[in-house]
């Protein structure tokens, strides 16, 4: 074993209290963005076990068993993707390889399971992923399994849905209604009723504009403050813009004033550049940034969290603001703040490290048009409950040539 590796390993195992090494590791020198604590500048972040131990400028390196140099990078709370698909829906993805690798430590499955299938969801996905997974439970008992089931109002039972939610109050954070292609407001009303019974938010995705005798105004009347509309920047479902004036609809602003929330839910078909550009120009940014990432969109629009954030940055949103809409805001929406969405001392160490790359980059929207931009947010390193799970640039590890006949070098 080389001297360097021996020193490296020794530095990992030396009993911490003796030398005052009270932290497991410190992320040194990164630009921390933690809106909840009004931090937006260069700070060190110390982690002990699965918790954030300290956030401060210039924490002495010798107070930790290990230091990870993240200077030149941004350090944020692990992102929260309010609209993901990890169960039930045929396009569902495993979250670890698709979300943890993009700085996203918490995802909310958006309607994949209903009350009939939630237990299977929990057993096969929630309990097995390294990603933290919550559920917006589908008002349809069978979940998001195709149009026959999703249009069957007899399987939309608020009481049974609310009962399942009461069974898992920490995992089921709200109700989803989606893909309803029959006339009227039944699906929405049932979802809102389940929301009332459980005192949790409803997130809606409905094909509204034509054919189903629904109006946006009426939908917004049925929704309650704290309920969300996802797919906000699409142009084939509910429109937030007037197509002629390209200004935000008065009823859209009214809805926001009432406390209704507008989520991105980018996906394969629900984000088009002109709508996002015009809405941003008319001062209508999203409340929460989310992906709707699934097996289609991961190819077509590549809309993971850093990708969606990059697009909004191009249309004028600051990085700090985008991070707030991807951490604090979604945490509050699902009533998980301040447990999640912040780097507050004592909170769980879900941390993301990003880089802003400069150059010429191309991004795609739903109709497969290209946006050329000069900045791109890229995930560099992810920590989930104190454990390093993704490290694109090997920041936490030594050069192999200095490590001798190394066995598996421990992961922070």
């Amino acid at each position, binding site marked *: 074993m080389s001297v360097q590796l021996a020193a490296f390993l020794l530095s990992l195992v030396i009993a911490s209290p003796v030398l005052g090494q009270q932290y497991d590791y410190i992320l040194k020198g990164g630009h921390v963005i933690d809106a909840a604590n009004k931090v937006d500048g260069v700070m060190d972040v110390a982690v002990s076990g699965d918790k954030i131990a300290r956030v401060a400028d210039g924490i002495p390196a010798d107070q930790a068993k290990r230091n990870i140099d993240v200077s030149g990078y941004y350090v944020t709370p692990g992102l929260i993707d309010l609209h993901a698909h990890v169960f039930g829906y045929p396009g569902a993805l495993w979250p670890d390889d698709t979300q943890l690798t993009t700085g996203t430590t918490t995802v909310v499955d958006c309607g994949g399971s209903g009350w009939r299938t939630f237990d299977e969801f929990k057993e096969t996905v929630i309990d097995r992923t390294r990603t933290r997974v919550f559920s917006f439970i589908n008002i349809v008992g069978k979940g998001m399994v195709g149009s026959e089931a999703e249009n069957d109002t007899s399987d939309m039972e608020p009481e049974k849905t609310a009962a399942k939610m009461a069974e898992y109050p920490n995992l089921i954070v709200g109700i989803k209604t989606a893909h309803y292609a029959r006339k009227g407001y039944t699906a929405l009303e049932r979802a809102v009723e389940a929301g009332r019974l459980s005192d949790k938010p409803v997130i809606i995705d409905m094909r509204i504009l034509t054919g189903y005798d629904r109006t946006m105004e009426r939908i917004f009347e049925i929704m309650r403050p704290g309920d969300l509309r996802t797919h906000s920047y699409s*142009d084939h479902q509910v429109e937030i813009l007037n197509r002629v004036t390209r200004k935000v609809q008065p009823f859209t602003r009214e809805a926001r004033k009432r406390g209704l929330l507008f989520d991105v839910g980018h996906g394969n078909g629900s984000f088009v550049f002109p709508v996002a550009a015009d809405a941003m120009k008319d001062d209508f940014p999203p409340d929460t940034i989310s992906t709707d990432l699934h097996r289609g969109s991961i190819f077509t629009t590549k809309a993971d969290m850093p990708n969606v954030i990059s697009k909004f940055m191009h249309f004028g949103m600051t990085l700090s603001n985008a991070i707030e809409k991807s951490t604090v805001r979604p945490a509050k929406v699902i009533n998980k703040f301040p447990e999640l969405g912040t780097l507050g001392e004592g909170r769980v160490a879900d941390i993301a490290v990003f880089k802003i790359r400069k150059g010429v980059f191309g991004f795609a929207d739903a109709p497969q048009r*290209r946006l050329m931009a000069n900045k791109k947010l890229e995930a560099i390193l992810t920590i989930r409950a104190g454990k390093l799970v993704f490290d694109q640039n090997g920041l936490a590890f030594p050069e192999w040539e200095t490590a001798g006949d190394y066995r598996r070098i421990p992961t922070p």
Partner: protein
Amino acid sequence: MLSSKKFLLILFLALTLPLAAQDTDAADTTIYDLLLKNGHVIDLQNNRNGRLDIAIIGEKIHAIGENLPASRAKKVVDLSEYYVTPGLIDIHAHFDQKGAWLNLNPDHNTLRYGVTTAVDAGSSGAKGFEKFKEETIDKARVRLLAFLNIVGAGMYGKGVENDVAQMDVDAAVAMVKKHPNDIVGIKTAHYQPTDWEAVDRAVKAAEMSNSVLMVDFHPKEGRGYEDLILKHMKPGNIHTHFYGRLTPQLDENKKVQDYMWKARERGILFDVGHGSGSFWFRIAVPAIKQGFLPDTISTDIHKNSIMLPRAHLNNVMSKFLNIGLSFEQVIERVTVNPAKAIRRADLGRLDEGGIADIAVLKIEEGEFAFLDSGHGKLTADKNIRCMMTIRKGGIIWDAEGISMPDWSTAGPYSNFR
């Protein structure tokens, strides 16, 4: 000397051809669906290594050549900044996604990296293969092939994988013969008892089914690696994970063992199979410096290896490029060589009339770092990135939207569907 008949024919053609070119009935009316312009094509099987255009019609490559006319194409993509290769082949992957927990979804873990053919390495055995085929292989957009595990139940942990009673040669042979288009061979893996049962049964099954064998081997007292590659395995068989820590490929002075060269001489193939445990810079670099390169570069991609070592195929290829293989050597090991290893002469090449499976790659320059299975880091200045993947003629991955029109000149484009 030309005969007078031939002379007259040539004279006739010379006089009439210019006329024929204007005759709409005789003109070439070919319309390309897609024209890939000016890429640096590396198609080693066909001795192509230079700037060429590729015209695609439907699922197939129609023409490969210089200066194919853009006026014939519905869509033209300028690839002058990139390399164009046959769709890559990853012969060691784990994609029986409804099977054991470690398996991944195939499509986004292949096609985003230019891989158009992946071979599942023994996730399923004779008992589970047809379920795997029905639920995953037949639905995948990537071409998914399989090594069939000699263990009937497949890769389901020590209990079954050490159980010789599970290794039914006849059942495996029958399954290979039943699905010759999907199953390329037999896999044995993870066997811990100190006898040769697993290897020998797998060798026998491969021989009886006239298919390829891939071996994952844990040497034991009395069941050594040298005997494996010199005596038990047959020419054309593949040893995977050969840069692994458990494989005694180097002596104490880091010299490549003589039996490695002997085995290579007798036709044993050495595959990378990176994974969570089987690629170490401290082993691979000295071996490569002595000229012991892999025959095939593959990932062993699964739910763990895709996280920290981040071993998707572009990552593994980049490691070899930075260690010192030429780009052509890397491409050879993910196209030509794996196609030969799995005896699929139709793959790993670009042929007029062949299925259009194509990768568009870029060598990025900058500061990059790569972790091996032991978390040793290689800081390096090159990174192989997949810019575009074409599968059966369709652009299925376009990393930067280079085939797309710009949004700002497209108008408000409401109701795009």
